[in-house]
């Protein structure tokens, strides 16, 4: 089936070429990081996790959000999700590959990464994260590939895919729960040590992931001729609206709990995030930007809930993605470290190489996504010309 991705028009190959350029730039930057050490990034002794882990957290959410389309289609037999389910599964594959790459580039001694498997440590959430992410990747590759293959051969889906799908649904929840537990299990970081973190992660994942899915589906419809039912997009946008509402509610709950009790150990992180201290307000624009984007996105989605206007929908989706990326990525990870256990306020900003490596990984994810969507388009959109 992969040979279908090797046939395309000039626009397709230009896009692939562009992605390869970004990947090569990212790869060369990574070589520089291997040679120099992780000091080439903006991370330091006090803020020891940065843009890489922020992106990892966000994209695990995107990967988990495939369940939003898989569950109704397979469990509730909601046939109108037929077109979008495969796109969701392929987005999950691409997102998991990105998360694995983000963790890999964040390691100080990546040649030893197999130590996680050779010397398993069940008390460590990072170990379990590797287990569940690898399992989820394999599950989605098998499910996505074989169901599309069956469609290509105009046969019914093989029967053994069903139990795998049933496993993949709680598995999707588990990958993001385990990721949340990485943070919420740490007593040292009071900003993360909240039971609500896992529910927050899931709510924001179910808002941001399907937003990305809608945007990609509309792009796939326009450029690759992949048909996705209007009703499917409308239903997914409703799910996004609800998930966004729950996410906003959860954030407000956190803010109440922290500020009503007014313990400095808890409020200090929120104060730094939303107000900053003199001379160090670098997270404030991200925090407020996230809030404003989320509110505008939510209102837009509410106003358009009874019809399907593409422009406002895409606008709301973009704002949702940006808002949650800023909140769950940058805001969560960096503010967890500031103030430090010694009440210091260090500075963090990503360096050029850090950003280039991230862009390289984004491009890799998009490459995987493009190839997979191209295969899907050539099987499904048989009557449309490809770009």
């Amino acid at each position, binding site marked *: 089936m992969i040979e279908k991705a090797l046939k395309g028009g000039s626009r397709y190959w230009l896009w692939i070429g562009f992605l390869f350029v970004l990947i090569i730039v990212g790869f060369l930057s990574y070589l520089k990081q291997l040679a120099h050490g*992780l000091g080439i990034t903006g991370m330091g002794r006090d803020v020891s996790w940065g843009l890489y882990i922020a992106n990892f957290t966000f994209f695990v959410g995107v990967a988990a959000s495939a369940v939003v389309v898989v569950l109704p289609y397979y469990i509730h037999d909601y046939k109108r999700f037929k077109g979008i389910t495969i796109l969701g599964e392929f987005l999950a594959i691409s997102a998991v590959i990105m998360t694995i790459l983000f963790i890999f580039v964040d390691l100080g001694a990546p040649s030893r990464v197999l130590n996680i498997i050779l010397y398993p440590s069940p008390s460590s959430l990072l170990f379990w994260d590797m287990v569940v992410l690898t399992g989820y990747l394999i599950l989605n590759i098998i499910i996505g590939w074989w169901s599309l293959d069956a469609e290509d051969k105009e046969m019914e889906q093989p029967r053994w895919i069903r139990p795998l799908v049933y496993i993949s649904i709680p598995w999707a929840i588990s990958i993001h729960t385990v990721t949340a537990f990485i943070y919420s299990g740490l007593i040292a970081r009071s900003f993360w040590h909240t039971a609500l973190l896992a529910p927050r992660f899931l709510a924001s994942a179910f808002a941001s992931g399907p937003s990305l899915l809608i945007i990609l589906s509309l792009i796939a419809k326009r450029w690759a001729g992949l048909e996705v039912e209007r009703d499917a997009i409308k239903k997914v946008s409703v799910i996004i609206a609800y998930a966004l509402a729950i996410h906003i509610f959860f954030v407000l709950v956190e803010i109440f709990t922290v500020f009503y009790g007014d313990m400095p150990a808890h409020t200090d992180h929120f104060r730094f995030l939303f107000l900053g201290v003199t001379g160090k307000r670098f997270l404030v624009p991200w925090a407020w930007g996230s809030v404003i984007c989320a509110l505008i996105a939510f209102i837009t989605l509410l106003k358009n809930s009874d019809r399907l206007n593409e422009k406002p929908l895409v606008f709301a989706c973009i704002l949702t993605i940006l808002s949650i990326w800023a909140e769950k990525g940058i805001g969560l990870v960096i503010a*967890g470290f500031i103030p430090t256990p010694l009440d210091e306020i260090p500075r963090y900003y990503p360096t050029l190489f850090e950003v280039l490596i991230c862009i390289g990984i984004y491009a890799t994810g998009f490459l995987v996504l493009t190839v997979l969507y191209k295969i899907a388009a050539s099987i499904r959109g048989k009557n449309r010309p490809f770009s």
Partner: protein
Amino acid sequence: MNRRDFLKFAGVLAFGIAAHQSVNLISQSRARDEKKSTKAWAMAISFSACARREGCRDCIDICHLIHNVPEFDNPKDGLRWIWASPYESVFADQTNPFNRGMLKNLSVLCLCNHCDNPPCVKVCPTKATWKREDGIVMMDYHRCIGCRYCMAACPYGARSFNWRDPRPFIKNINKDYPNRMKGVVEKCNFCEERLSQGLIPACVDICPEKALIFGDLNDPDSEVSKVLRARFSIQRRPYLATGPRVFYIF
């Protein structure tokens, strides 16, 4: 061999490997339980004795010298095994408006607390850090993958990472002790290499005011046991129940 047979074989092989590894894991932990506990190393730091010499850095200098801890210009790359911070930062939870005046400018020595219930050991995905029977939280620099999860988990800021190759930044290399490579986490090890030769930690040894008291908590006659029974002591962030083995006495 056709595809189905190959898959069956691969499945049995994978299961066998997993079973073998689990048996290893279980038998390892059993072996550890059977060993009897020997010593329980702990340290007591006296604020008043340390404050007698303002600006003294002997303990920090000797530790970083013999352990080849590098020195960087850029503070974010900085590494430290032992350092001094103001009392209000170290004991923010034990500062009230009245004692704040007395403790102003009081510099407190901080190091790895070698906790009884170390959160860093819990989160390490490769067991590159573990708690030894004698209480020391050890580091295996060969196994560390540099994920820095332990740094996020440590409530005391005791761990540092080698953000770049440290060797060019070590002022005076001590050839009797290795340095670390870039990409691994390091921290105070209670001078376990000296303890194995019957010596006390270098910081304790060199302090001109004898502000650092070290010893075996399991031995009621050790200096640290006697001083902790005689004088009031506090620990850093005790409500976290990590059980630090570094105590502070006035």
